[in-house]
C-alpha cells in the first residue's frame, strides 16, 4: 500500500484537472476522481505491467465518459441553491485570462473523445502513444481526432463575437 500511495498521490492534482476539463464543473469532477481512486485502491494488485499513470488515467477517462453519456441522456440538473457556486462562479484565473475562458467554452462543443485527446496531449503533456492507450484507439486515430479538435476550436474562436454568444447560450 505504501507503493500505491507514493505512486498515486502525486497524480491527484492532474487527475482533478483532467476531470474538470472533461466534465466542466469541479464538483462532478471530484466525484469522478473519488470513484476513480476507490477503484485504483481496490484493483491495484491487478494493474498488470501497465504504466501506473496510463492505467489510472484509463480508469478516470472511462468513468468520466460514462458520466458524460449519462448527462447527455438526462440533461444537466442543478439545484437552484448551487447555481451560484457551480455554474456561474468566476474562477480565479478567468478575469485575467479571457481568451482561456473562450477556449474552455469552445471546447464544450467538442465531442467527448476529441476533448479527451486535446486535454491529455495539450494539458497533461502525455505522448500520443500514452493517449492512444488511455483512449483505446490507434495512434493514427489519436492524430486525426486531435487535428479535428484543434481545427474546430480554431473555427469556433475565429467566428464573429455575435455568433459565439449564441454558441455559448446553447450549452
Amino acid at each position, binding site marked *: 500500500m505504501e507503493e500505491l500511495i507514493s505512486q498515486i498521490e502525486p497524480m491527484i492534482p492532474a487527475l482533478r484537472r483532467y476531470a474538470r476539463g472533461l466534465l466542466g464543473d469541479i464538483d462532478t469532477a471530484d466525484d469522478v476522481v473519488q470513484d476513480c481512486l476507490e477503484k485504483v*485502491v481496490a484493483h491495484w494488485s491487478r494493474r498488470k505491467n501497465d504504466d501506473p499513470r496510463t492505467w489510472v488515467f484509463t480508469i478516470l477517462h472511462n468513468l468520466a465518459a460514462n458520466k458524460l453519456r449519462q448527462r447527455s441522456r438526462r440533461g444537466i440538473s442543478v439545484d437552484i441553491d448551487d447555481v451560484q457556486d457551480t455554474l456561474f462562479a468566476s474562477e480565479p484565473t478567468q478575469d485575467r485570462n479571457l481568451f482561456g475562458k473562450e477556449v474552455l467554452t469552445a471546447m464544450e462543443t467538442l465531442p467527448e473523445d476529441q476533448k479527451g485527446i486535446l486535454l491529455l496531449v495539450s494539458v497533461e503533456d502525455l505522448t500520443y502513444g500514452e493517449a492512444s492507450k488511455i483512449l483505446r484507439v490507434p495512434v493514427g486515430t489519436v492524430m486525426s481526432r486531435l487535428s479535428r479538435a484543434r481545427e474546430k476550436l480554431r473555427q469556433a474562436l475565429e467566428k464573429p463575437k455575435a455568433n459565439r454568444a449564441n454558441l455559448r447560450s446553447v450549452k
Partner: protein
Amino acid sequence: MRRPICEDDLLAFVDGALDDERRFEVETYLASDDRAMSRVSTYRNQSAALRQSLDYVAREPVPSRLNIRNIVDGRSRRRLFSAWQVAAAATVFLAIGGTCGWISRDLTSMPSAGVAALAIEASASYQAFAGDLVRPVEFRPDTRDELAILASETIGGPARVPDLSASGFRLMGGRVVPTAHGPGFMWMYDDDKGTRLVMMTRRMEVDKDSTMREAKKGNVNAWTWSQAGIGYSMVSAKSAPELKSIADAAKAQILPI
C-alpha cells in the same frame, strides 16, 4: 530525398514531439507557408490557454475526500468487515447447498451442447468482462451496425445487435470470445446505474431453432435462444423476469434472416 511534411508533423511540432532534425525541417517549411504557420501558432495558443485556465485546479489544495491515505484506510477497514460477512454467508450457503442442491438444475450441471452450453459460455463471458473496469470491451464502434458486421465476420453468419435503449441500456462495445463450439462474439450494454448486461452470439450445431430458455448461476441470470442456426444469450444480474422482457424485446428485433 526529404520526406514531405504532413499534418501529423505539424501537430507533433505544436506538441514538441519531433526530434531535432525533423523539427528543423518543419521550421524551414513553416517559414515558407504563412497559412500553416498561422495555424500552428493558433494551436499553440489554444494549448497554452487551456493549460492556463485549468491549472488553478491542479494548484488548489486536494480536498480531503480525495486524500488517498483516507481512501486506503477506509478500504482496509471495510475489507476486514466483509471478510467476516463472506465467511458467514459461506456457512449459510453450505448448509443450503447440502440440503437443496438437487432441486436446481443450474449452470453448474455442464451440458455440452445446444442453447444450454451457450448459456454457460455467455455467463462465463459475463463473469470475466462485466466487472472489468479498464477493458471490458475490445471494440467501441460508433454504431450498432458496425458491431453487427464484426460479430457476423467473427461467427461466420448473419448476427444482429439489438437496440436496448427502450429498456435503458446503451451499447458499450464488444469483443471476440473463444468457445468450445467455435468463435463467439460478445457485446455489452450498461444503464444509468452502471448495471451491465452482456449478449453473446455464435453458430449452433445443436438446437438450431430453440425457444427461450432460462438459466441461473448465483445472482446472474441468462436467457438463451436460437434462430436459423444462430444462437443468442443475454446475461445480467437483473432478476429473471426483468431480464426476460428485455430478452423478448431483443429477440423481436433479431428476426431470422
